[in-house]
């Protein structure tokens, strides 16, 4: 409003404002409008102007601030610490003396919170369990591509296996390391893998501390 020139003095203010609107409509203004000529806009004290501006801003900002505060809520939330989730049992760790060995693809089943809903025992992700060549340790690889988050596919052939992302051609060796040239900034994300012998019997229980990581970055950064 304050940019529309006001009529010079008090009593005619209303009338003046009216005609100002009409005048602002330009060349096609209504011909019957009361043509009033305007003088310089009125001068008020600095404080007066400042008060008007600040009040105007405040009434507008209050709802906006409330909205933004709510909008920022996700930043405040922290993810619960990951715990070891049982994935499978094995009779023995496969022999990887000749090459990488794939144990399999496993869904990770855990409780999941999605805003107001709690899902109990839902698949929340997937891991490839592998035994890298020459080692005797199981490695858990997150099936999410470290490039931009597609689901990495398994490629099996008579010669062995490797991982291939269906999105931007990233490929990984059987132990999860990149096959260069690779768009992915880092190897597949490995997670802590707990292998324990069952108290009764010789079976091995394999659990994975399942986590998701920020895709796209060189650094393997936990999603918070």
């Amino acid at each position, binding site marked *: 409003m304050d940019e529309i020139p006001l009529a010079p003095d008090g009593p005619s203010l209303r009338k003046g404002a009216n005609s100002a609107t*009409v005048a602002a*409509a330009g060349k*096609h*203004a*209504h011909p*019957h409008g009361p043509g009033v000529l305007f003088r310089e806009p009125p001068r008020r004290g600095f404080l007066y102007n400042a008060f008007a501006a600040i009040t105007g801003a405040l009434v507008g900002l209050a709802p906006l601030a409330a909205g933004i505060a709510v*909008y*920022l809520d*996700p*930043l405040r*939330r922290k*993810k619960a610490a990951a715990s070891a989730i*049982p994935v*499978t*049992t094995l009779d023995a760790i496969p022999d990887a003396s000749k090459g990488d060995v794939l144990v*399999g*693809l*496993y*869904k990770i*089943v855990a409780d999941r919170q*999605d*805003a*107001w*809903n709690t899902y109990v025992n*839902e*698949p*929340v*992700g*997937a891991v490839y369990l592998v035994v890298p060549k020459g080692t005797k340790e199981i490695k858990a690889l997150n*099936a999410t591509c470290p490039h*931009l*988050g*597609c*689901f990495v*596919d398994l*490629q*099996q*052939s*008579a010669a062995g296996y490797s991982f*291939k992302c*269906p*999105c*931007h*051609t990233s490929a990984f060796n059987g132990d999860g390391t990149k096959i*260069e*040239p*690779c*768009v992915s*900034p880092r190897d597949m994300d490995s997670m802590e893998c707990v292998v324990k012998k069952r108290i009764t019997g010789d*079976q091995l*229980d394999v659990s994975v501390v399942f986590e*998701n990581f*920020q*895709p*796209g*970055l*060189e650094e393997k*950064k936990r*999603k*918070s």
Partner: protein
Amino acid sequence: MRGLFRWIEDRTGIGGLMHEALYERVPGGARWRYVWGSTLVFAFAVQAITGTFLWMAYSPSSQTAWESTYYIQHQMQFGWLLRGLHHYMAQTMVVLLALHLFQVVIDGAYKAPREFNFWLGLILMQIVLALALTGYLLPWDQRGYWSTGVATSLMSLVPIVGEPLQKLVVGGGEYGHHTLTRFFALHAGVLPATLVAFLVLHVAIFRKHGIHPKKLDPAKDCYFWPDQVLRDAVACLAVLLVVLFCIAMPVIFGHDGTFEERMAAARANPGAHLGAHLTAPADPSNAFSAARPEWYFLFLFQFLKFFHGEDAERIGALYIPGAVMGVLFLMPILGRWKLGHRFNVLFLVVLLAGAGYLTAQAWHDDNMAGVESQKVEFIPGFARTKDKLDASKAYITAVRDAEDEAHRAVELVGAPAGIPPQGAVALLRKDAKTQGARLFRAKCASCHSASAGPDQGIIADPPSAPNLHDFGSPEWIAGLLDPKRIDTADYFGNTAHGTAGIKARADAAKKAGEDAPGDESMTLWVKENYSTDGKSAAEKKEIEDEIRAVSAALAAEAGIEGRMLVATPDLPADKVKALVAKGQEVLKDEGKCAGCHKFGGVGDLGIAPDLTGYGSKRWLLELISNPAAERHYADQNDRMPAFAKDADPKNNQLSPQELELLVNWLRGEWYRPTE
């Protein structure tokens, strides 16, 4: 009447505004090349109208987004038309934007005093692209879910604020309810409102400066109404026709059946055949290898394949697109010089050509295995390497799977039980047809195929265990009892029970100085007893009858509907019964089957699988849980792992639910809609 008009006019000035709008002077006369701006306004109006009505039926949450979209598309009358209009008009809008930009730059319409308008136009373009991106996710189907995931992941590359920014956009660390509510608020509220505000400014400034005439020719000057309006209206009509054509495309160009058949199908069930596609409901735990952005973003998708590593990626995904936008913004300034204008035009041509090239390359990368494309191999970047062919094959399979799954999702939610409150994804997760196949692929297909023939079903590479397609049917069992087939890759050929396997085991035993394994192998027995070579016609018939009888009896044990010998006019019910009874006799004959197998109380366990209840649900559950159990292969088990041996399901490779899905899938038992 006139009085009323005058009364309204005095109080509103509408008539004057209309007059002003319609009698804008068009210097040099109306032209077709001026229509792009108007078609864009038209397209936006269509989006606003169709969008508002979609809004009235759409519900943004991860349990209802797909479901409500499905309901619009398949259940609400003309829902397919409404969705189709919105979907394809969005794509058309992107094309129109490109054309408008092109026309403005070529005509030099961005030059002084129209700089601001050009800038406003570029902002509008960004808003439209943001609308397209946010809209893609809203149906919450696999395609939108996985493709948008790539786009939001890119945000983590933004320096410093990347991660919080991504979290704010996504509404948390992972996709969920709040991703939808936020995307929807942007798509239906914030972005359109901003667009309208900028559009008003854009049009107002455009009016202030008037049209940028292609050629000044005062003799041809005319008014906007009716000359230009007519052209604009015709152009809008053309746009609408293109959109309608896209909606009808599946029927016009479909693959199944003749055009008439497709027409009939579409008439009976328009939602399934017309308008925009809807893939299966989003499921974070189910891979979707056919994820691609909408075609007009495909060039960006392809572009990313050239940048290796984080820093390079940042250049490709942020800095180069940013720089391109920067140049576009600078165009009005550069355009002050003649050379600058030429540069602008050239830049735009190169940009569009580059995007076109990348789009074509992306398409070729994905589909080369399905097309004869040797002809384009000479173009750089279009070579058919083995890697690329493999990737393309995988992509084509993934697309086919995605289509099957989408189809299946619609079939399942159409079942009498309908959609449960947990959403359609719960139905899919319990569906033996799709999940069983996935489980088979993940757990079994490294050894077993399940394939009716080359290029069909799931094929192990190489198969080292029986092909389980049609398992438990008389035909499948007859194949196992056929001396010509038992030793092939479809049955025991590549296992320890085939001749090669037996020999290898014998050799290994010899090497180790142990006793050679006995000759109780099924393969050897079948070859010896069921071979018809050199036999008389009567003997041949006897063998064939016996195989038929045993197959019928075992299939009856399995009891799979559709995989049992049933009575036909040629084979009355009592004959079937007799055949089964005869088969049971053979099974119980200690000189034959029961010599190794247990059946119906005859014979012993521990040598070969128990044939009582062979192929039944329970039998299969037990076999898969622990093939080395006494009732099954015992110490004769070849490499098959125990998938659920432990009493505590937590410790098993397959959960009880998964096991059941797999068994049902092997038996071909899943929900089938009745016609």
